[in-house]
């Protein structure tokens, strides 16, 4: 177990290293450098290049950059003068994290319940209805769903306000639904198919024959097995929710990191894009690492190998 953890840890560090390197070199391919769009004299350009160390040969720039990253310094924003990427993250990330965590919890909670309900009513109307909704949930792009939800619930029915972003708990409902629709649908399908795999196995039949109650069979025997694949999905789901934040925050006017990332893409604020990419990648990699370890803990069968 310990050697496995260490191995995975180095794997995660390696992945992070690759992402940082890739980010650095891709951003350096961009022709013209970051100041090209600004109408300044050659002299000012030279001074700026010198200030940010951009006049050095590329390998020295790379070493400098990696060195700064090692010390937790993600760089500075060119467009938002005087702000470091770290400050921007500290300011914007809590908003996104709160929304994201609620969305993760809601996806798992509702996905598991829907999936179980579908599997327990296999091929009945409820099952078909849940599968239909979850297929739609996978098929409609999030930004379209979000727009339609706002139109329906904020403008036509007036239940929530379209401008007051996250002002009250009620304001969380639409963004969370939009953000979690895809992962909820996926989890519901995943849980349904794993339950159907387990439900015909011998130990369930034995439990039924012993007279174990239906609730207890679901809770004690079926769920324990069905939840194992769910753990592996947490990694991809985190990535989904982070990228989902890019459009959800924009549609619902939420001043979070995702919205800021999209804006930095639009203004071509390269150091900010780099810093935010590395930060978000770190987030995904850490979650994947934890999930890998957790998976071993949850599934005792793997330990035997």
């Amino acid at each position, binding site marked *: 177990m310990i050697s496995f953890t260490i191995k995975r840890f180095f794997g995660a560090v390696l992945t992070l290293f690759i992402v940082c390197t890739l980010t650095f070199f891709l951003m350096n391919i961009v022709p013209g450098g970051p100041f090209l769009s600004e109408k300044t004299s050659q002299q000012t350009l030279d001074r700026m290049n010198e200030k940010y160390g951009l006049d050095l040969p590329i390998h020295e720039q790379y070493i400098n950059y990696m060195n700064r990253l090692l010390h937790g310094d993600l760089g500075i924003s060119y467009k938002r003068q005087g702000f470091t990427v770290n400050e921007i993250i500290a300011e914007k990330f809590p908003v996104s994290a709160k929304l994201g965590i609620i969305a993760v919890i809601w996806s798992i909670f509702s996905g598991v319940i829907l999936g179980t309900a579908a599997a327990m009513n296999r091929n009945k109307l409820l099952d078909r209805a849940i599968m239909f909704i979850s297929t739609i949930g996978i098929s*409609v792009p999030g*930004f*379209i769903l979000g727009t339609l939800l706002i139109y329906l619930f904020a403008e036509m029915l007036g239940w929530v306000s379209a401008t007051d972003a996250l002002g009250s708990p009620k304001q969380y409902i639409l963004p969370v639904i939009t953000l979690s629709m895809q992962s909820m649908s996926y989890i519901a399908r995943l849980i*349904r198919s794993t339950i159907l795999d387990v439900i015909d196995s011998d130990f369930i039949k034995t439990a039924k024959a012993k007279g174990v109650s239906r609730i207890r069979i679901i809770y004690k025997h079926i769920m324990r097995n069905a939840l194992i694949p769910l753990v592996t999905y947490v*990694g991809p789901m985190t990535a989904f929710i982070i*990228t989902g934040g890019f459009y959800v925050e924009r549609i619902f006017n939420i001043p979070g990191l995702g919205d800021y990332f999209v804006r930095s893409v639009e203004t071509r604020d390269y150091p900010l894009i780099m810093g935010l990419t590395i930060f978000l990648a770190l987030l995904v*990699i850490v979650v994947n690492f934890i999930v890998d370890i957790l998976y071993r803990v949850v599934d005792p069968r793997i330990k035997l190998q």
Partner: protein
Amino acid sequence: MEKPEKKKFMNVARPGSLQLTAEDVRTATKEEKEQLFIMRETLTYWKDAYRRFLKNKIAVAALITIVLVALFAFVGPMLSPYTYDQQIRENRYSPPSWEHPFGTDVHGRDMLVRCMVGAQISLSIGVCCAVLVVVIGVIYGAISGYCGGKVDYVMMRYLEVLYTIPDVLVIILLQISLKEPLGKIFAGTLGSSMISIFVAFALLYWVNMARMVRGQVLLVKEMEYVSAARAMGAKGSRIIFRHLIPNSIGVILVTAMFQIPMAIFIEAFLSYIGLGVSAPLASLGSLSSGAIGSFRSYPHLLLFPAMLISLIILAFNLLGDGLRDALDPRLRSE
């Protein structure tokens, strides 16, 4: 014909009888031989899969939908009196009418033909990405599974690293940085954003495919006919391409089918954050994201491309489900 059969029947009727007649040792007639052999038409894997697929009404409906959408996308523009970039000044923002069934947009361009071209681009992105994933993933997975041992170990560790790289972030990076260099190389042919989506798929998205193929290859590798081929001196490449890959076609097809909606989805997402195909070209994603701002005043601009893109993704997902049920009986949900 009648007589011998009757006789036979009588023989069967008294099974304990030891009495042999000439009828019992007579050679079988042609019809009798055929009756003996053709109990039921033998079913190959593909025939069986085909039959199962046809029974699945949802999957067949999805396939028909895809064919219709493909016709709409590739044949439609030829039949339309307008082109996708033709601007009709006096007809800006007109709602759906007989002349323009999907209405017109801000520049007075016909939305029907724009949706057709958009669907064409979205479908092409989906299919090209799937092809890339198949080529790279299948070769990688087959080699890894076939070689086994240390080669397999190293190749799989590399996959694990790729798997944890956040793909959408890398696509955004690629998109930003490759836009100009690629735009110069492919000027006028394809959008540079399409190329960088392809690059990203070629770099990252074949991981799942490689894993599936490897698993299948590990399964097939131990079968007798592969051992027989090896015993007869077949080379590794021949075994991979003649035996291992053909026997993984089912898995490959199903996995590839799920790549198509994924690629279309990602392109739509990129369009929304402003990194999709560039004007005047339009994909369904860029059409619908471009219409979000004016959704309240002109809902038809969002509605048609949004419905079309959802329909395409839905149809491919359902077709993938159907193919999986048909091609891999083990994975059937019922």
